């Protein structure tokens, strides 16, 4: 108990407290100047971070429900087996590699546009770069879909099969069985997966650094910018405050969901 507490206090609580203190500490003692400066200069980046994260979460939710649903209710055995083998690959690819893949895939003359042009689906003149908020959403989603799918597929597999079989016997299609029987029972796990993905996306530095040129960009990029070019921990930590606030809200939701599940048991 004691070593565990010490580790948590030293490695997590203390840095958090010092970071918060730094956000409100200036040359003349307590100040809100860092927070004001962070919001004035980087308010757009905060809004951008929230928008991109939410966009990616929607995409992750749709794709993971589709994949996990097919893994659970799919009738074609070989297709289920291939999908089960394929979908996990991005789990083992680091964010930084995902960023580089996206950079060469989504740029104006990147692989995606080249393939579309070669196949006649796109004219060379109308090719455009996706290295902006769209690229960020696609990269985050690509990286996090397997993680959420893994959790969700496990939760769906744990749902009593007789429930969906009964629905199917009564004439429900597979889609209906998924959305009315299986998904509602696995939904808490989906939420947990999405919340953990949000926290991961808010903390990634490499992908926005590699994909986004100029502003607005993710908060992590601007934190790194303040430290690298200004040695300015005050504003960097003030930006951190916005991240803490977002993750604190999601942590609260996470705890409520976990408690609700424990109570159900």
């Amino acid at each position, binding site marked *: 108990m004691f070593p565990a507490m010490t580790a948590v206090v030293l490695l997590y609580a203390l840095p958090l407290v010092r970071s918060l203190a730094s956000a409100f500490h200036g040359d003349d003692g307590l100040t809100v100047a860092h927070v004001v400066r962070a919001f004035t200069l980087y308010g757009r980046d905060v809004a951008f971070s929230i928008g991109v994260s939410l966009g990616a979460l929607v995409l992750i939710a749709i794709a993971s429900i589709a994949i996990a649903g097919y893994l659970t209710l799919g009738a074609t055995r070989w297709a289920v087996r291939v999908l089960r083998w394929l979908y996990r690959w991005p789990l083992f690819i680091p964010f930084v590699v995902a960023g580089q893949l996206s950079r060469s895939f989504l740029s104006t003359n*990147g692989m995606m546009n080249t393939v579309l042009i070669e196949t006649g689906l796109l004219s060379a003149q109308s090719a455009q770069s996706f290295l902006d908020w769209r690229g960020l959403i696609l990269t985050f989603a690509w990286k996090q879909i397997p993680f959420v799918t893994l959790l969700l597929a496990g939760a769906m597999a744990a749902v009593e099969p007789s429930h969906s079989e009964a629905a199917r016997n009564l004439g429900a299609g597979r889609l209906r069985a998924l959305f009315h029987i299986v998904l509602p029972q696995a939904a808490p796990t989906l939420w947990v997966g999405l919340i953990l993905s949000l926290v991961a996306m808010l903390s990634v530095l490499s992908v926005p650094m590699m994909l986004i040129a100029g502003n607005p960009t993710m908060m992590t990029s601007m934190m790194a910018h303040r430290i690298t070019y200004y040695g300015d921990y005050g504003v960097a930590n003030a930006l951190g405050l916005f991240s803490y606030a977002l993750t604190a809200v999601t942590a609260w939701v996470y705890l409520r969901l976990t408690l609700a599940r424990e109570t159900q048991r």
Partner: protein
Amino acid sequence: MKAHTWKPSAMKALVLGLGFAAGIHQAGAATTLNVFTAGDDNMVAYVNDFLAPRFEAMHPDVTVRALGTGTGDAGSQAIYETLSAQRNQQNWGIDVAVVHQRMAGQMVEEGLLRRYTDDLDTAALATGENTRNALGVNVEGYVMPMFQSQIALAYNPALLAEPPQSYAELAKWVEEHPKAFGYNGITGGMAGVGFVFGWMYAFTDMADTLQNGPWDDEAPARWNDALEGLRAFNDNVTLTPGNAGTMDAMNRGEISMGPVWMDMYYTWKADGRLNPDFRLLLPEPGMPGQPMYYTIPERAEHAELAAAFISLATSPEVQAAGIVGEFNWFPGIDAEHVRGELSDAQWETLYADVDPETLATRGFSMPQTDYFRAILEAYEAQVSR
């Protein structure tokens, strides 16, 4: 730049970890010389593969260990954090630190570096302004340049036969050729930052003051026209993600011109990662560059060995064979001392696009530290918002 008393513990833990990692190496050799270097992986490779064997041959009981701390100013920042975290210890875990110009000045001001070049036999070979002045800070005696890094404009002659030769021409040219020029703003690496500084040198009447000081509180109010011009300029350019992003975009033919670090450009060319037909130019009035410095921390455990190491690394033979021969970088010591060690072909390759005279007249230093910060903040407030 002011010292910051509050620093995230995670960062301290990281840098102490780096120091510890270096300390582990000491167990296996009689003496281990720890060389921490900011910059790309090739800096570490240069120390390990080129300098270390030569130094170890001269000092058989010494093992040289190189540790890279990351690219750009962040790499120098990590070295600063490492030394700063060990401030109260008897010995610091770094014997030689290779850092950028801006951090060298700050470290001298904070007493983290040792004065060592007074007794260094190669000190007289480096006489440039940057051996005395690091962005407005007097660093004489504390630094020896490893190599001179210069920002220039790379262009693709296949897309651009007659490139603009000055900032003023470039500003007009992008209006007629929207999105053909690309750079990485100020958040994606120093090539873009340096381009912005060059813009300020060109379009304010303060080029000299910006580089040498003194700081004037009223100065930023005089930059409005230049910054508004840059804002309009940005509407017609492609913003790229990072120094490498600019060269990637050139390779893919998405842009035909952009600012690059000349050393990085040459390294990519030598590795076959860049179109060999690309060329370089240094536009009027000029662009900034900076040296990487060899420094010795104030409480380095093996300070004398560190000085001997730097003496070897800044000798004309090593500068010619290593810095120019291996990388095609500009030497840190004065070029005239390296000339005799190079073949005519090597010399011509090095100065093929930008000759020594152009480099001397158009190669500026980075802005003095206060202006460095003020220009970036002004850009964030007026140009990128």
